[in-house]
């Protein structure tokens, strides 16, 4: 008789003859091992709500009465362009008194959860540089995505799901926004499509088109026997163990991912809270709900996103539409996280690659502004109902409490218990960091 308690994983693998999927194995891929953080963490995971295009801060979270008053006037400094007042009214919300415009009526009810950074800045002025800058800390060269760094630093808690998921990624601006670059490939994002059946598998190659479940079962059992025989011959083979582990995880993902993304078991109230089912909010609502479910399942870094924030023209109509598509879903997400007591250790980040100018472009639009924009955080050890940084009276430049992308990265890592100066990876002769040689943790916003 075999005493299982005395057997190592390796021996178990050699001797277990159960069906595929039943061997007592954790996924052995490099990502699987949970690693200790540098110091105790407030946040365990991150949900990044990426608003590609650059959200206009002066129309949303950074209220500028002077801009309203000076509408139509020329900017100081000889700029020909005329100031454009926000077409939307601002109000203070909640005991914290956060200024939020009427573009976000639902989110405004969560004002006391938000930690708003109003003096963000970045060097990159075009999407092609600013999007990779935001995601990787480098505007030009291929670098690992922040999600890859986080997974590298902390490992994954999941056994049947990847640790870094990017949903609806917008890859027009460099293919490397969710990649691992020089980090091992196991840290790259697994791309997940939020669509539903008609849009194909949520994960590439998730389902066989050529085999029914029973046939696949037979086939994978055959494969397992082949690999077990090989393992017996090899006696010791870490790579083969990892390979067998990867088939185990792949097999589990086949059901775990669709199960998790099956919304049929959600209550009508939940769907409604996320805006799922209403035409305007359905798409982003699904992403938000999936993000919560992935977070709950232990996925370390989840990016969801939507494009269309590049409002050079038709600002009034288009931005209304962009905001309406995300307002309710985000409010739903925050409420849901809070209700499940997950907001305390889930860091939610709402950001685009830059902000927009206070002056008009084509009468009814705004150009890119990299010198001042707004990012807000919620949960995960950030001060709730807090506001950090001040931009000038038109919102064209940060004045005080300026936060660079590197600083934001350093802060996100800090919240996760990682020291951005210590999270390094040696590649081609030197140590690389997400924050390069820069970055300061914004301590003022930490609880």
């Amino acid at each position: 008789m075999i005493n299982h308690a005395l057997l190592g994983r390796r021996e178990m693998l050699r001797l277990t003859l159960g069906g595929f999927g039943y061997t007592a194995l954790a996924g052995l891929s490099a990502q699987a091992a949970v690693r200790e953080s540098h110091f105790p963490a407030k946040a365990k995971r991150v949900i990044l709500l990426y608003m590609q295009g650059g959200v206009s801060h002066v129309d949303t979270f950074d209220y500028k009465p002077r801009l309203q008053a000076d509408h139509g006037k020329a900017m100081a400094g000889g700029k020909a362009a005329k100031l454009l007042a926000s077409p939307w009214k601002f109000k203070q919300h909640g005991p914290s008194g956060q200024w939020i415009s009427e573009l976000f009526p639902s989110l405004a009810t969560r004002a006391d959860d938000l930690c708003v950074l109003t003096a963000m800045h970045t060097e990159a002025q075009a999407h092609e540089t600013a999007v990779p800058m935001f995601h990787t800390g480098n505007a030009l060269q291929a670098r690992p995505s922040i999600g890859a760094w986080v997974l590298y630093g902390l490992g994954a808690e999941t056994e049947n799901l990847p640790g870094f998921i990017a949903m609806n990624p917008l890859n027009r601006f460099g293919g490397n926004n969710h990649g691992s670059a020089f980090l091992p490939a196991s840290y790259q994002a697994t791309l997940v499509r939020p669509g539903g059946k008609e849009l194909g598998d949520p994960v590439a190659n998730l389902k066989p088109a050529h085999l029914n479940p029973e046939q696949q079962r037979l086939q994978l059992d055959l494969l397992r026997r082949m690999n077990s025989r090989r393992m017996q011959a090899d006696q010791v083979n870490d790579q083969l163990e990892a390979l067998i582990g990867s088939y185990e995880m792949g097999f589990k993902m086949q059901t775990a991912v669709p199960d998790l993304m099956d919304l049929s078991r959600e209550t009508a109230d939940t769907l409604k809270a996320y805006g799922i089912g209403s035409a305007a909010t359905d798409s982003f609502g699904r992403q938000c709900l999936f993000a919560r479910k992935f977070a709950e399942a232990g996925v370390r870094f989840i990016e969801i996103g939507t494009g269309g924030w590049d409002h050079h023209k038709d600002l009034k109509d288009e931005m209304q539409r962009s905001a309406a598509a995300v307002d309710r879903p985000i409010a739903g997400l925050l409420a849901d996280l809070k209700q499940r007591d997950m907001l305390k250790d889930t860091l939610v980040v709402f950001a685009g690659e830059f902000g927009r100018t206070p002056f008009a472009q084509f009468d009814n639009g705004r150009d890119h502004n990299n010198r001042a924009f707004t990012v807000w955080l919620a949960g995960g050890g950030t001060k709730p109902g807090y506001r950090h940084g001040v931009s000038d009276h038109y919102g064209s430049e940060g004045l005080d409490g300026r936060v660079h992308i590197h600083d934001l990265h350093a802060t996100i890592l800090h919240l996760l218990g990682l020291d951005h100066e210590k999270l390094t990876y040696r590649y081609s002769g030197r140590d690389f960091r997400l924050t390069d040689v820069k970055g300061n943790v914004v301590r003022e916003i930490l609880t």
Partner: protein
Amino acid sequence: MTNCVAGLRASSAAVWFICLASVVVPQVGYGAEARDFADFEKHIRPVLVKHCYACHSEKSEKVKGGLLLDTRAGMLRGGDSGPAVVPGKPQESLLLEALRYEGFEMPPQGRLPDDVVKHFEIWIAGGAADPRDGGAQESKSTIDIEAGRKFWSFQPIRDARPPQPQSAGWVQNDIDRFILVGLEQKGLTPVRDAAPEQLIRRATFDLIGLPPTPEEVREFLNDVAKQSESGEAFEKLVARLLASPRFGERWGRHWLDVARYAESTGGGHNVLFPLAFHYRDWVVDSLNADKPYDQFIREQIAGDLLPADDAARRNHQLAATGFLAVGMKDLRENDTHRFRMAMADEQIDAVGRAFLGLTLACAKCHDHKFDPIPTADYYALAGIFTSSEPMLGARRNRQRNAFAAGVLSKADSSAAIGDAEFAELLKARVEVTYKRLAVRDEQWRILNLKGLKVKEMEKHAEMLGTDPKVRKLRDELKVLEERLAELTERYDAALRQSMMGMRDSNIEDCAIHIRGEDSQLGPTVPRGFPQVLVSGNARPLPSDQSGRLQLAQWIADPAHPLTARVMVNRIWQHLFGAGLVETPDDFGFTGQPPSNPVLLDYLATRFVAHRWSIKKLIAEIMQSRTYQLGAEHDAQAYEIDPANRLLWRANRRRLDSDALFDGVRQTSGDLVYDRPRPTIPLTTNDDRVKSMDLQAWFMPTTRHRTIYQPVLRDHVPDDWKLFDFPDPELVTGARGITTVPTQALHLMNSAFIATQSLKTAERLVAGGGEPRGIIEEAYLRILNRRPQAVEVDDALVFLNKFESGGAKRENAVAALCQSLFASAEFLYLY
């Protein structure tokens, strides 16, 4: 390589004090009494002592940024970035800039209080009176070239005599002596030799990147059975594989990893390199022809400067310089100087890593942190490359970097593209762009006026056309567009007669760019080579040549300590899975030392002696008994050397993405062996990758070997990336090897594996025959060996069950084949 982590703040943080001085601030005007030293003593010196001296005084353990602040002269002289203090001019004083955290951020621990900074401003404005004397010390350079020369890889290659192991009977050739001695020193013995089936699979994948066919396996087994002398059959096999045209495709792919080969610029705009394929083909052809490696180097660095007897030879050599041109470019950079410096940097990096195993580009902003490469050496090399210009054939290249669109005309072509032709094309393109904008702006203006949505411009096209101004603009646009089309067509025709590569341009030495900044130039450095690798006095490079030819000759010199070592290590790595030096692109201080330095030198010596023949060296290594070892486990050896650095057995190596995809396709009969050319059709005016229909571009080549499929930066096929195809931005001597569930899903479920398995099955079933025979043939085709009885039985049961579910024979066999493809034995070389 622009930014390096080992910067000031990261490393010096520990020595800064956190506590900040609290200073009472009197409101003082500029100038006036500041000449008094009292001001310095009261407000300046204490701060310097407390916050700066740790890193910026003669007593500092390591002086940062070359800046000494402990004497007046040192302050005025400044550091790498220039004077720290300019008396009377606060705005020009870097010290103040740093204290204000604009640019540098000093002290790194935290910005000093405003009042403290204010005092510095007042003091500088008032003339920066400073009683401290003592000369400005040259900051201590951390680089000692003489000491650096003692590093193992900078030492001359020693002609190592093969040692005498105790069990000399095991030895097949001299390589084995080095290995066996290493094993014997640890009390280890090698495992048994590989089985013949194992050996032919290993050798075939290693040399041509494809599996052996069943016929080839049978022939080899026959040869082994009847060979009169041990090794005869294997020798014949190796000779056949080395002579195969597939050899250059496999080893060419290895080299293209090193050459960071891609067919687009990458970066913003990501524009096609429509002529890059000439270089790719040059690599394949050169390796097939067993071009001596020294020649292989010379052509890539200076092919345009080498003599050529005829046009074909000349064209061949021009194509080779594609090596220098195919690197990543950022065409958003409109500043020509910066663009060229970035390109030179990329080229120094590629040449350094590829041929010398040195991270030379790390010396761009500061002396190399680890290797004895001062910044001056970097700019000596940079001058060579900035005295040359790239001819990229990258068309969508607006404004000032027009030269990037130039091409090298083939020697036998009259269809030249000169600067004038390109300028004309460029002008036409710019005119079209501006006219389009004019049309758009006018239309938007009208729409805004009418309160219509700009977004719906298309919908209102007709209405807008009734406006006379719009109509006029549209007509003008049409004329310009037609002209552009005509010019483009002419340009494309000429492009087909052209090459991508390098040529000499204005010959000029390069100035040191302090901290890599083009705004801060230091002294000009004569073009030349890294001092640590040059003995005696370096001869100056000719003033009428870039120096690329001399650089090429210097690298390809048999006496160069790095060149042969780096290449034999690459070859060894491709045959064993790991190099003797495990960091193939870094033979510097941060690289790994060789596991068997004597063997490395022995191989390097042999390589040079055999006139740099890559094929001879490969054959010699493969004839060793070490190469032919089995991959089995040995508990004792594993205990002592689990990583198998001493080679007591063969490594189990995973197929890389190319071998995997090509191997599966060959097995299914799907693989097309021709070379498609050109890879990239020239059919579009806008050659930004994002404007391409990538599907249409990739499709015609998908059945070809992967080396002949397009590699576009940022658009490497997902399947390849999944199996660790390298990012073509940097020199990659050793690919990553990951095992992730998404790979498993690919092998379980992808359309690729399903289709290929079915094709394989159809061939097997088409032969008719009983399941038993089909199973045997499937094993032979996919795993290149006969199955054992237990495996046949297992597969029979499987087919039975599968078919009893109602599946057709070929689908059942396809499922079997897929399991074989997905098995460790297929995915790994044993």
